[in-house]
């Protein structure tokens, strides 16, 4: 079965072809069946491949399947090849599994949209691109997938392009990602120049010999690659596109901007861990940027009022956690959080979509409230996801987040400051997520009276995916129960063969520190409970308290509400000077110099022509005279000078 791993991305591609070419000619129901069917098949193949991989002994779990040689030119060789190892196996399971559920949900959510076939074509194209990305066996193919998911993100953010905000948001996402991808492409070129190969396995094999630990070259390569990750995974300073990306349909936000595409950067760092291990500075930067992003965006999420934007900031914040995990050398923990986050954040978005569905696309949580009775399934599933992201013990988020926090404290590159910020972020996360839950489902109803009678639970095609994801959000964490809680951390063990390539076996966590680990765990749980308690006090017990606080700390509140004015600062410092420079080049250089020289030549020719035109009088005798003079001159020359 492992030989058929190429089928995993091939199935969604078939969906793209069918819906792309015939989507408008076949019935709507057929479009949905095709789109979901190919994802289901893809998930099935992923599962079978995964099962086969599990049958192999741990150190043999690497498989490379070459479909064809794509480029062979001089030293450059690139294959359309797939690399299957525990890391990519986990990724294809998450992408195709969560992707399948979101496709099914979309059938219900997008049911009314007139561009139904286009939606599913792009969604399938995204699934294909993402699976290509995670399965690629070399940097070039990886880059193709990387760019394709960016393209799909652009297309789907701007899905309702008649709305200017949506079109602008798509453009913003594309341009910001371009900045990151520029660095990423440079990184790939530097890898090729250094190693003469673009194959993952070859590069990782050569890396320890060719690069010294801490050398400038290793640092440059890894930093350039990380620039790409900053753009794709929305880290400081390139995170600004993700909140705006919420203009797209909600299932798109769930699939692309929460569960899969934005985690590509984390996957990339984990995939390139051999290189990152050679550049401690880059690793430290990854961890620092990750944690800074986690805290910074969590603080923005505290006061936002748009349910989807809160989720977006929360996603950025959780991605920060994953980068912190990778940055302190705990790649498995980062990937573990990636997986659990895919479950509960996809669920949060889909639940938010279900709320919007019930309220005729209302996204402002100030105009919600007391929806629990009306849409109970949405409420309970969202409550589970909220508890999971807040880190309530027993749910998936608790295990993965605590693993990262513990590694941030005690890991090979850990630092207590990272842990401290991480715990603070956990408290903020718990607060703002429960704020959303309370304001949306509990308390008094602030729904527009006209809408009240309209509120209804979503159809089963939407609620069943919610329930499955809720189940996964609960049990997903039990794959990686840490040893200190009596588990075996099977997830980490499964990924271990990948992350032990190229350097010594990871140092087992200091066993004397069991008490410490339990203590830190207790602190982070306490932080989460404090966050929930404060949210309860603010939004259930004393709903006027937040307003009084906002007035009291007006300045801080407005700064947070306006997202620290980061967009405005970028606008002033980067976008506007750039625009002015472009306008100068347009009006100064293009119009005056380029157009001027072209027009100048044309004018010169015209002027010369207007002079020469006088020669042509139209009088026959003038011409005759000219002919005569010419004849005389020629004859005279022949007769007398030769």
């Amino acid at each position, binding site marked *: 079965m492992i030989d058929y791993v190429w089928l995993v991305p091939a199935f969604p591609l078939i969906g793209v072809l069918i819906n792309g070419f015939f989507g408008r000619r076949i019935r709507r129901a057929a479009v949905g069946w095709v789109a979901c069917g190919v994802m289901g098949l893809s998930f099935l193949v992923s599962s079978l491949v995964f099962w086969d991989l599990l049958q192999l002994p741990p150190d043999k779990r690497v498989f490379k399947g070459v479909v064809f040689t794509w480029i062979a030119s001089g030293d450059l060789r690139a294959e359309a090849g797939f690399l299957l190892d525990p890391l990519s196996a986990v990724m294809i399971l998450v992408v195709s599994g969560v992707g399948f559920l979101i496709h099914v949900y979309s059938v219900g959510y997008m049911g009314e949209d007139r561009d139904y076939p286009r939606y599913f074509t792009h969604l399938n194209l995204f699934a294909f691109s993402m699976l290509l990305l995670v399965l690629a066996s070399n940097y070039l193919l990886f880059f193709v997938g990387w760019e394709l998911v960016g393209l799909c993100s652009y297309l789907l953010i701007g899905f309702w392009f008649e709305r200017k905000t949506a079109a602008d948001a798509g453009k913003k996402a594309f341009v910001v990602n371009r900045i990151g991808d520029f660095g990423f492409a440079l990184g790939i070129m530097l890898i090729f120049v250094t190693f003469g190969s673009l194959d993952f396995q070859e590069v990782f094999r050569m890396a320890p010999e060719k690069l010294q630990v801490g050398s400038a070259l290793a640092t440059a390569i890894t930093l350039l690659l990380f620039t790409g990750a900053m753009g794709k995974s929305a880290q400081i300073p390139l995170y600004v596109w993700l909140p705006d990306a919420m203009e797209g349909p909600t299932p798109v936000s769930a699939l692309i901007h929460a569960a899969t595409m934005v985690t590509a950067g984390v996957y990339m760092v984990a995939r390139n861990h051999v290189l990152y291990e050679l550049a401690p500075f880059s690793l430290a930067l990854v961890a620092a940027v990750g944690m800074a992003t986690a805290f910074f965006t969590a603080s923005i999420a505290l006061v936002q009022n748009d349910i989807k934007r809160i989720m977006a900031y929360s996603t950025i914040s959780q991605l920060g956690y994953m980068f912190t995990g990778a940055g302190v050398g705990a790649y498995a923990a980062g990937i573990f959080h990636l997986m659990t986050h895919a479950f509960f954040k996809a669920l949060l978005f889909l639940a938010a979509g279900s709320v919007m569905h019930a309220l005729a696309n209302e996204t402002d949580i100030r105009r919600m409230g007391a929806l629990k009775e009306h849409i109970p399934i949405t409420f309970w599933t969202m409550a589970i996801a909220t508890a999971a992201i807040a880190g309530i013990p027993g749910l998936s988020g608790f295990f993965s987040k605590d693993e990262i926090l513990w590694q941030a404290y005690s890991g090979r590159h850990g630092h207590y400051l990272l842990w401290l910020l991480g715990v603070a972020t956990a408290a903020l996360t718990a607060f703002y997520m429960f704020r959303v839950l309370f304001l949306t489902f509990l308390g008094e109803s602030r729904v527009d009276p006209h809408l009240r009678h309209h509120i209804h639970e979503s159809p089963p095609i939407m609620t069943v995916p919610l329930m499955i994801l809720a189940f996964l959000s609960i049990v997903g964490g039990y794959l990686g129960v840490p040893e200190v809680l009596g588990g075996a951390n099977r997830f980490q063990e499964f990924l271990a063969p990948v992350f032990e390539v190229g350097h010594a076996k990871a140092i087992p966590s200091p066993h004397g520190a069991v008490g410490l680990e339990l203590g830190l765990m207790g602190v982070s749980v306490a932080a989460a409970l404090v966050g929930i308690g404060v949210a309860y006090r603010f939004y259930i017990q004393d709903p006027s308290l937040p307003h009084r606080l906002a007035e009291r700390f007006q300045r801080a509140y407005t700064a947070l509400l306006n997202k620290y004015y980061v967009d405005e600062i970028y606008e002033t410092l980067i976008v506007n000077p750039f625009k002015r420079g472009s306008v100068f080049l347009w009006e100064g250089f293009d119009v005056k110099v380029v157009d001027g020289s072209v027009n100048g030549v044309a004018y010169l020719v015209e002027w010369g022509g207007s002079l020469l035109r006088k020669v042509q*009088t*139209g*009088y*026959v*005798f003038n011409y005759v005279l000219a002919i*005569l003079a010419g004849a005389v001159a020629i004859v005279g020359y022949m007769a007398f000078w030769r």
Partner: protein
Amino acid sequence: MVPLSAYLILSAFLFATGVVGVATRRNVLIIFMSIELMLNAVNLAFVAFSRFLHSMDGQIIVLFVMTVAAAEVAVGLAIIIALFRNKETVDVAEINLMKW
């Protein structure tokens, strides 16, 4: 026997007459006739050379020239008639349409 130079002098004289006619006259019909005169001056030279060099080539070329001249007369007169119908004149000083 009349020497070759006599024929050539006559031919040159006729040709020069034609050139002067084309260059100086204003009536388009006169110009046309002058052109015919130049052609026939050349024909005379051809025939004279043919006679003195004992080659029939000159005679053949004269036949060609006369054929072409006949065709040219047909086309030329047609153009002149068309012009006259439009402009009511045969004075080339008033016919200067062929310019930009």
